[in-house]
């Protein structure tokens, strides 16, 4: 035990002096998370900081008739109609967002909307679409706006209809004076007002109550990016382990260690322990960064979930898996080039497959990648973190993922032990 600890202390000292390793372990992850968060925040239109409980689709409206008597009511109706959350903005802002495809379409209310309707003139609303807008989405919006527009113009429809009826009665003694203008207008108005409080056919919506706990549908950046990035870089640390061991072998100090009165597994564990500790520090640094810096950028706050114990144990298991992987790489790789290039490359690809760079639900759309992602330990690590951080589950729920990680660790360690050249 003491032997192992002595080895650990020595290795920690060596690694801490190595600037390149330091960069890989601490600076790159933090820089990467920062860049990734900012870019993803920009792309998602920076609405990520506020939790969206509103599941309705955003409808951007450019209201060129903001003071109109009818427009306010029309927009309220539209917002209440169901599917769309109305957000008014300036035309230049809407155009800019449309241009960058942040929105697929916007609704334009003309400046003469209220005046023309008040004077009984028809008006035209425009839904302005991006050329790449989903056709079906446009059709649905068209129908909804049409439906609301019918309600808004009910008074005009009634007036027109009754006027037409009156015109047909010219010469009919039983009804020729039945539809004088003032009476008609009063009738239409009263029916219109009545329809606003008591519609002839009301549509009521009932969202069935949910039985199971709702899965977070919104993607909070900090809970999706930070775990992914931590896992990516924690596993990249495996290459650092491998390089350290490789260099010791090259310099001959490994041979000296082998000749020391140490058992082989003691030596391997003595090599692994410092890295494991360092990896834990790395995880803590990344999470501290996520908890302290990301909120400053308005990217949501990162915690450790509802069970700090589950988080801590998961972190330890993930670090163990990465360290074992490092031992395996060092026992399989023959040259420094293989360690640097090949293992880094494979770790990046595996990290990608595991869902470190893109959310895993996107990766799982493609069946082959879905299968591949399950074959890399990163996916289990990210899943465990995601469950703990985003879904707030406890230790019990992540046990299957942790079990898979331990299985991977055992396989890596076993191959490492078998193939390790103690020389």
């Amino acid at each position, binding site marked *: 035990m003491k032997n192992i600890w002595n080895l650990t202390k020595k290795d920690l000292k060596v690694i801490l002096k190595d*600037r390149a390793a330091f960069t890989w372990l601490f600076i790159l992850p933090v820089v990467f998370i920062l*860049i990734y968060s900012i870019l993803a925040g920009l792309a998602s239109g920076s609405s990520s900081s506020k939790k969206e409980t509103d*599941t309705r689709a955003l409808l951007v409206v450019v209201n060129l008739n903001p003071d109109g008597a009818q427009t306010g009511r029309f927009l309220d109706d539209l917002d209440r109609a169901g599917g769309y959350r109305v957000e008014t903005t300036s035309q230049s802002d809407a155009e800019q967002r449309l241009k960058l495809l942040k929105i697929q379409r916007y609704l334009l209310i003309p400046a003469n909307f209220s005046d023309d309707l008040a004077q009984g003139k028809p008006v*035209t609303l425009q839904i302005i679409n991006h050329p790449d807008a989903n056709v079906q989405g446009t059709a649905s919006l068209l*129908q909804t706006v049409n439906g609301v527009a019918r309600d808004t113009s009910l008074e005009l429809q009634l007036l027109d209809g009754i006027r037409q009826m009156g015109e047909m009665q010219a010469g009919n003694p039983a009804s020729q004076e039945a539809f004088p203008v003032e009476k008609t207008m009063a*009738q239409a108005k009263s029916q219109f007002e009545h329809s606003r409080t008591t519609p002839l056919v009301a549509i009521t919506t009932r969202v*069935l109550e949910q039985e199971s706990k709702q899965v977070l549908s919104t993607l909070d950046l900090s809970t999706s990016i930070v775990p992914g990035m931590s896992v990516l870089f924690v596993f990249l640390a495996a290459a650092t382990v491998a390089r350290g061991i490789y260099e010791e072998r090259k310099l001959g100090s490994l041979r000296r260690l082998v000749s020391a009165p140490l058992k082989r597994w003691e030596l391997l564990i003595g090599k692994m322990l410092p890295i494991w500790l360092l990896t834990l520090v790395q995880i803590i640094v990344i999470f501290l960064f996520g908890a302290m810096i990301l909120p400053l950028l308005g990217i949501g706050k990162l915690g450790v979930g509802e069970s700090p114990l589950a988080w801590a144990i998961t972190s330890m298991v993930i670090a163990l898996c990465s360290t074992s992987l490092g031992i395996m790489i060092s026992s399989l790789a023959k040259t420094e080039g293989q360690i640097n290039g090949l293992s880094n490359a494979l770790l990046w690809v595996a990290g990608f497959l595991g869902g470190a760079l893109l959310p895993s639900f996107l990766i799982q759309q493609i069946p082959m990648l879905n299968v591949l992602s399950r074959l890399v330990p990163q996916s289990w690590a990210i899943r465990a973190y995601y469950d703990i951080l985003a879904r707030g589950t406890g230790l019990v729920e992540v046990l299957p993922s942790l079990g898979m990680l331990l299985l991977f660790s055992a396989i890596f360690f076993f191959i490492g032990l078998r193939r390790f050249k103690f020389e």
Partner: protein
Amino acid sequence: MNQTNPLRAILSVAWKDLQVILKDRGFLVVVIFLPSVFSTLFGTINQKNIDNSRRSITLPIAVVNQDDGLYGPQITKVLGEIEGFKVTTLDTPAAAEEQVRNSQVMAAILIPQGLSQNVNTYQPSEIQVLIDPTQAAYARIIPGILKEVISPAVLVGELSYGIRTLLADYTPYQQADSATQRGLEAQSLAVNMAQVQKEQSDPWVRVQAVTSTGKDLVIVPDNLFAMVVPSFTVMFAFFIVGAMAADLLKERQEGTLRRLMTAPMPRWTIIAGKMLAFVVIVIAQVALIFGGANLIFDMPLGRSPLALALLTIAMGLAATGLGMMVAAISKTDRQADTTGLLLGFILSALGGCFAFGVVPLYKSGGTPELITRFIPHSYALRGFDALMIEGKGLVDVLPDVGVLLGFALLFLLVAAWRFRYE
């Protein structure tokens, strides 16, 4: 002393360096394997995502019509004709609720008993829409659509009530015989039909869907690989910076640089030869990856191979220039390697190599786009975009080529100022 022909010197240095580089498998993996794999993965996934978002989805809904009059069946029929709805008719509200609960349908529309009767006698009624909470985001648009579907019935109910009320208030009508009254009812019906038709063809509030014709709209490329492949290729092309700088410093540390300098050739030819070797690597990288993507994913290569070649060479020079500059300001090969690595990530991020969604940073307007203007990567990306997505020609990318060469020159000047030959 008899000096060698500079061109020959450059070529022989480049040849030597190429041989050294080609032996470094790790480096080749980074420059060629990683961008290929990332392009393939990102491209496939994003393409799938775009296809999904473009595709029309079918919303399965259930309709329970309990109305035995005219309107219930009419509404059911119109709902069935809406593209995008897959309508199942069920008999009881309980059966519908069951299907919603099991997410078999997204929503159920319950048309109440006596709807037609109520509408005709101007009594309020209520159509209920049950929504599946797990699919609420899609299902919530159904009530809005339903509003349009029921609007003819509402108009008929309102208009006939209005006419009825006014007539009832008119004494001659009350005194008229029943035949006259029936005649008036028939006329009222005709007016109703006319108004419903007018609302369909020439409504008071017309809603028009138009496609924006703004000229600088960001268009999603048909083949997303044309965006993803250049992004990763440019990103990893600039990863030669660290390797190149480290290589140069290693030569200095190991003394081979000194030996080269004692050879009978001008100093600058050593640097030029090294740069040439790395430019060749970049050209090979672009040729291999773009060629592969063209063969496998039908990625368009644009109509001007010459422009593509010029842009690639300019990018290679900018990257190697940056490599020289990093070598000049670093003290050890390890430091150069790390600096190159960090620069590689940071510059590619700021230059717009990572695209979230379909709008790359260099087209995103505002401050982010302004930042990309200071990064050489963005000019390479912009150029490839113009050639491969927008199908432009040589003349259109000359400014980008020029800026890349400008960057190369700037980097080299800094390098020449700081580099120690020894």
